């Protein structure tokens, strides 16, 4: 496959592996967080960790939009479908996220909720157009990558004069999550979690550009390398991070220059700014309440805001006490450190959010790497 196979070449991978081994100073260790679930998925699926020396450790960050979706938000979507009788459209991998009362959207569908999987916000809009007698709500989740298409759908609904389409907006912002991790006591105060650098998001950065990460590099002295989701991209980024650490540099470098610029997609940014505004606070699964980390629909578009149209207020729901997702998302613990991992909590019966999506740290380790725990 053109443009795919070039980034999965085994010989190139072995060459990069050798280069990383050569660059990594044996006397020290390197801890890099890949923020994005897409990177976590690539590392696990292609066995990238096997190609790294022992002193280079990857920490799986909170960059999976499904994993950071709090229970209370999924509850709202379920209430919309079951209590308000709306047709709820959602991306596929949100269907299994555990909610309150042992429910999930998939189980709510089995209880009679009209819940439909869509591939895009535009598909949800089509459902609304095709079913004028039904109220259709798009359950909009995700980071900066999926936000512009939601904005487009809202603007189109306005242009079409649709009275039966609205959005349950749960979009969140990457830089706020990175700040939260760097400000966490384990990293900032106690120094118990070494974090030597970040692999910056791929698709998110196509929208916001590389500029927002410059603050982290300067303020926290952490190198950031923005990388694509292909496994060779990830390895190249690791090599670049090792070199920055060795040289004592902490700057933003762009491995993904084929898609990311410093400024990003300004048109998309303007569109998002026109339709959305910052929420004062937004709860993330595993990271608690993060100030100014989520988006809501501006009052000019209030008629398309499901939170305004339907009586569904947000109620925070505590995670299972034994669940270590919060610590895992911040890099404090590994999936296998959690007592629930692989026993009570499995991909078939996820207790914590990290076990839900294939991009979650726990699901990735369970699905692709748990053989290592038995070696």
């Amino acid at each position, binding site marked *: 496959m053109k443009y795919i196979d070039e980034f999965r070449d085994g010989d190139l991978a072995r060459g990069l592996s050798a280069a990383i081994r050569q660059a990594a100073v044996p006397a020290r260790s390197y801890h890099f967080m890949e923020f994005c679930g897409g990177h976590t998925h690539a590392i696990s699926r292609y*066995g990238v960790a096997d*190609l790294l020396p022992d002193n280079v450790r990857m920490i799986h960050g909170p960059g999976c939009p499904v994993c950071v979706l709090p229970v209370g938000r999924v509850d709202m979507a379920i209430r919309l479908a079951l209590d308000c009788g709306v047709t709820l459209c959602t991306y596929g991998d949100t269907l299994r996220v555990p909610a309150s009362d042992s429910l999930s959207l998939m189980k709510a569908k089995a209880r009679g909720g009209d819940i439909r999987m869509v591939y895009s916000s535009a598909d949800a809009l089509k459902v609304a157009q095709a079913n004028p007698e039904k109220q259709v709500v798009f359950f909009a989740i995700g980071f900066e990558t999926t936000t512009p298409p939601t904005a487009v759908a809202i603007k189109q609904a306005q242009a079409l004069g649709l009275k039966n389409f609205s959005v349950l907006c749960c979009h969140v912002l990457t830089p706020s999550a990175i700040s939260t991790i760097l400000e966490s006591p384990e990293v900032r105060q106690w120094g118990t979690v070494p974090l030597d650098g970040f692999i910056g998001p791929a698709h998110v950065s196509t929208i916001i550009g590389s500029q927002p990460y410059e603050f982290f590099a300067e303020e926290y002295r952490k190198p950031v390398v923005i990388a694509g989701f292909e496994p060779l991209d990830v390895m190249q980024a690791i090599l670049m991070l090792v070199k920055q650490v060795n040289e004592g540099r902490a700057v933003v470098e762009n491995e993904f220059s084929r898609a990311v610029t410093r400024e990003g997609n300004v048109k998309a940014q303007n569109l998002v700014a026109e339709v959305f505004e910052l929420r004062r606070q937004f709860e993330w699964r595993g990271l608690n309440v993060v100030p100014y980390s989520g988006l809501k629909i501006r009052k000019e578009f209030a008629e398309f805001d499901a939170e305004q149209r339907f009586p569904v207020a947000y109620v925070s729901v505590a995670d299972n006490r034994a669940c270590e997702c919060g610590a895992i998302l911040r890099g404090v613990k590994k999936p296998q450190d959690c007592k629930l991992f692989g026993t009570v909590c499995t991909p078939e019966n996820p207790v914590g959010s990290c076990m839900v999506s294939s991009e979650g740290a726990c699901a990735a380790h369970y699905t*692709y790497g748990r053989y290592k725990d038995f070696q």
Partner: protein
Amino acid sequence: MSEVKRGYVRPLDIRHGRIDLSHGSGGRAMAQLIEELFAAAFDNEFLRQGNDGATLPVPAGGRLVMAADAHVVSPLFFPGGDIGCLSVHGTINDVAVMGAKPLWLSASFILEEGFPLADLKRIVESMASAAKDAGVPIVTGDTKVVEQGKGDGVFITTTGVGVVPDGRELSGDRARPGDAILVSGTLGDHGMAIMAERESLGFSAPIESDTAALHGLIEALLASGADVRVLRDPTRGGLATTLNEIARQSKVGMMLQEKSLPVNPEVAAACEFLGLDPLYVANEGKLVVIVAPEDAEQALAALRAHPLGARAAAVGTVHEDPHHFVQMTTAFGGKRIVDWLTGEQLPRIC
């Protein structure tokens, strides 16, 4: 099946007619549907007996194999096939992978009120043609009609009966460390054909289902004399799920080589597009073969000599593993588990 006097009954209006509740009532309309559509298409000496069941000759020697398969597919018609031929192929394959010669099939229909007779006719003719090509007659069946909204057009359940010769032992618990793992061709074609059609993805080159009856290929393989331990058709859940089932049954581990797995470029591209893994996507005309290591080449040659096995490949080996993991050396050079499928494969958000 009762006799309907033609002179007093209007023939079925296949072109405009639709299934209604009377077609499942057990009365004249049902008899007419059976006679004019099912019996006419599937015609054979056993069906012609017109009884509630078929009286079949008992084959001498060997053991009877019986397999049942229910078919619910959306859409009912897809590139490369439809629910009709699928319901015939699927059950023939379930019988054949036991090492048996498939002899007879039954077919039961659950039809939804309002279903167009023209579509039903297409499906029935596709079944008749598939059964004829495979040389496995449909000898008995049943028809029920459910109210509109309580079905999905048509559900078909088929049962197959066959005979496995004495001395032939094929079973999921017979894989041994050292054995070779072969597949008869490209992976994921059926599942991606369905998904592309269902989601109206509109790829420029349509992906065709691989639906096919495998008993001929299996006979050719077994005739080669290779010491075949396990045969399976990797349908729902794909190759990954099938190998996990065998690994658990045989209490062994497996190691696949990603580079060796045959996948059509269009299927690989579609999977890439949707964030799916072809290892988990359904096949309806492919065979997984676990064979003694010394006979692997011979078995591969026998598969490749048959039109349905032209792209057969050796994809891995069986080894000892108390955890029964199926693992894979990635094309990238790393290792990973090839786990059981969790629920449905769902596209990733980003």
